């Protein structure tokens, strides 16, 4: 176990990101998909903050991460509203049922 540096943080962010992607790809539940999105955003946030700490970026990374957090909260609210509407229309939360955009 060497000293903790930038790479370790980046790998943790990558793992979170991939987990979020897999979550979005495999969960049929719309709420699950939303959770995947949260994971992806957090993975990205870890990267921002890590770069803020280990590079001359300074506060920029933290400020951007703060914005991302705020946007994620907003996105969650809207997505949840969409999910509720979806549920209202389809009487299910299964995203596979919503294939109206099929070509």
């Amino acid at each position, binding site marked *: 176990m060497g000293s903790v540096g930038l790479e370790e943080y980046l790998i943790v962010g990558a793992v979170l990101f991939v987990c979020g992607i897999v979550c979005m790809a495999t969960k049929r539940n719309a709420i699950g998909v939303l959770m995947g999105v949260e994971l992806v955003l957090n993975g990205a946030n870890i990267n921002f903050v890590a770069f803020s700490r280990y590079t001359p970026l300074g506060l920029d990374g933290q400020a951007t991460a703060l914005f991302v957090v705020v946007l994620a909260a907003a996105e969650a609210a809207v997505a949840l509203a969409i999910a509720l509407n979806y549920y209202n229309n389809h009487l299910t939360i299964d995203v596979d049922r919503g294939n109206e955009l*099929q070509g």
Partner: protein
Amino acid sequence: MDPQSTGELLRNLLTVAWLLPLAGFVAEIYWLRWSHRLSKTAAYCAVACIGLGFICSASALITWGVATRGAAFSDAHGGHESGHHAEQHHEEHEPQLGAAEGEKVAAADPHNHDNDKKHDHKNDEHKDAHAATEHAGMPKAFSGTFYRLAKFGALNVSLDWYIDSLTLVMFTMVTFIATCIHLFAIGYMKDELTEEYEDHEVHTSHGHFTRPGRFHRFFSYLSLFCFSMLGLVLAGNIFQVFIFWELVGVSSYLLIGFYIERKSASTAANKAFIMNRVGDFGFLIGLMILWTWCGTFQFADVDHDPGLFTMIRGNDGKIDVSEDGKQVYLRDAHGHRLESNGKPSTIGYLLLIAAGCGIFAGCIGKSAQFPLQTWLPDAMEGPTPVSALVHSATMVAAGVYLAARFYPVFTPEVLLVIAYVGCITLFVAATIALVVTDIKRVLAYSTISQLGYMMLAIGVAGWGAGLFHLVTHAFFKSLMFLCSGSVIAGCHHVQEMPRMGGLRRKMPITAYTMLIGVVAISGLAIPVLNIGLSGFYSKDEIVASAMAYSNANRVHFLLFLTPLVTAGITAFYMFRLWFLTFYGEPRDQHVYDHCHESPRIMTTPLIALSILAASCAWGWGTSGTGNEGPLFKLIAFSETVPSTEAVTLNGLTIPSHQGHHSDVHAVHGKAGLLALIAAFTGAIFAYLMYGSRVINPAEIRRQLPGVYDFLLDKWRFDVLYDAMFVRPVHIVSAWCADFDKKVLDAILHASASVTVLVARWDRLFDETMVDGIVNMVGSVTRSIGYSLRVVQTGRLRQYVMWIAVGVVVLFGVLFTSLPK
């Protein structure tokens, strides 16, 4: 009354008389809109229009007489040279007067002042000078413009009026005769007052043809004709004359073809119209020549621009020919030569002859002169009142009227042509009339013959004589036509004279009015006293003119001999007609038994016309009868070319006419005597052959079979024309048709099939190439779209998966392809 207001009054009166029949025509052609077919009111309307027209015309005539203080009736011509002189005298002041009179009323009278002065010295008789000077300032002719239709450069096309005593006489004569004939036609056409008129001469598969009656239409046509005829007489330029010339032609066409369902009637109408077109072709050529070289159509001077008469005749009545005889100088009202661009305006002498012959060709067509005379007998297919009005008294006389009106433009050569044409016509027609048995056709040939007399008279410079005969002939010929109409109506449409005979006992009024006409046309008179009916005087005058002419030009003695002989022939065939119809025993008892006198509405016009036919040439209290009577003097008053002395041009001598010392006057007694002898001979022969039956006409017929057949075939003119014109046209047409079918059609068909072939190729190209490319593009796009739509599953998770895969693949691609 001053000249200007007189002119305006005359113009207004005549315009009213002219336009009333037009109003009548418009009203009558739509008669069925406000009345019914059985109503006679259309006829009353027409009679009212033309009757009012007659009143206006007669008022105008009286106005003229009052304005000239009777000079026109008594002093204008003849033995009173001073009267003539006095009249000339005032015209010396004419330019100033013309200027004073303004633009509407312009004097148009070219006269030779020097000439007058000579006469002034020659003649010591001044007794009438005072009376004549009192009407000083009254020009011979009034003229002006109603309305200008168009102006092309210097040429005015306008509606003009030209009023002189001839116009007035023609107006009065036409309206009077037309009124009589309208009245007569009310009786004659009453058969048409029915919803179902049965035409016995038209056969259909189910018996006779029936149609609704056309009473009102007949009268509307008559009104149209009257309007056209009066317009023709009133016209102030040659182009306007041409317009109304064609209008009377159309009316004539409509009236001849009134029984249009009869094949013979429609053919006759076409024949009349086409024959007239031949003449009108010449008329148009004449018009174009005059337009090109003189640049005006006007008869009289307008606003000091010289009219045709002044241009050709100047102010002295002579044609101003250049020394080499090839050019004619155009002159103005003062006798000065006209100039344009510094050079004197001229017209070629030959061109002037051509123009005159062209105009005269129109007259030939309209007046049925040789060689276009064949249409008039056929025109008798029209109802008899039409024959009386259109084809004897007025329209056919329009040709003579125009020839007389245009007299100043005619060169002596043209006059000679006119004379010979008239001469041939009068002889040919009279001989045919000898053998014709249809009562109306006899009269038709007689009309042609008499028109020939008039033409002859104009050709031999007997200007007044020709027009005098025109008027007298109009009266007695319309009278005779109406009588024949009365006979035909009485005999239920039998027209063949051999089936008549003895009708004077059944229809005395018709018979004796007819006799007056017959005597008038034959020119019989009481010898020594020289009292006869109108025709006697007028024919006398013509024969005298012809004699004077042939005396002056010995080569042309036939111009005297033929009318003299024909005078006898005329008397013969006219008395033959009367004897065959009214005298002796009935030859067809059936016709005789059903025959009856006509009703009063038909006989009254007969009596009125017979009075005028007998007496129109008499003196009526003035100094003389015949050529010294008022009618002749009134006509001669308007003579535009003075003929007080003989004139010789290009070897042709025009004898003098006016005055006691003129050439005509010198031979008048002799000529009259010869004519009277000829007439009596003819009449006596007729009595012997058809009255007392002393000579059997059948034997003569047997002795001269060739001549008889020749005459019966109308000198074989129809055969000749058929061979000369109709058959060649047929042959050429057949050739043209063949050419059309075999050559033109072949070319057309070939081009059409080539076009079809090309079009087919084009279509193939279109369908395979153009459409193929477009369709290919479309189908390829569509198939790509179909194959790509599979990717769009609409499933969210799949999309996420694809994004991830895409990133991985992109990374792989970048990593492998990009250099380190």
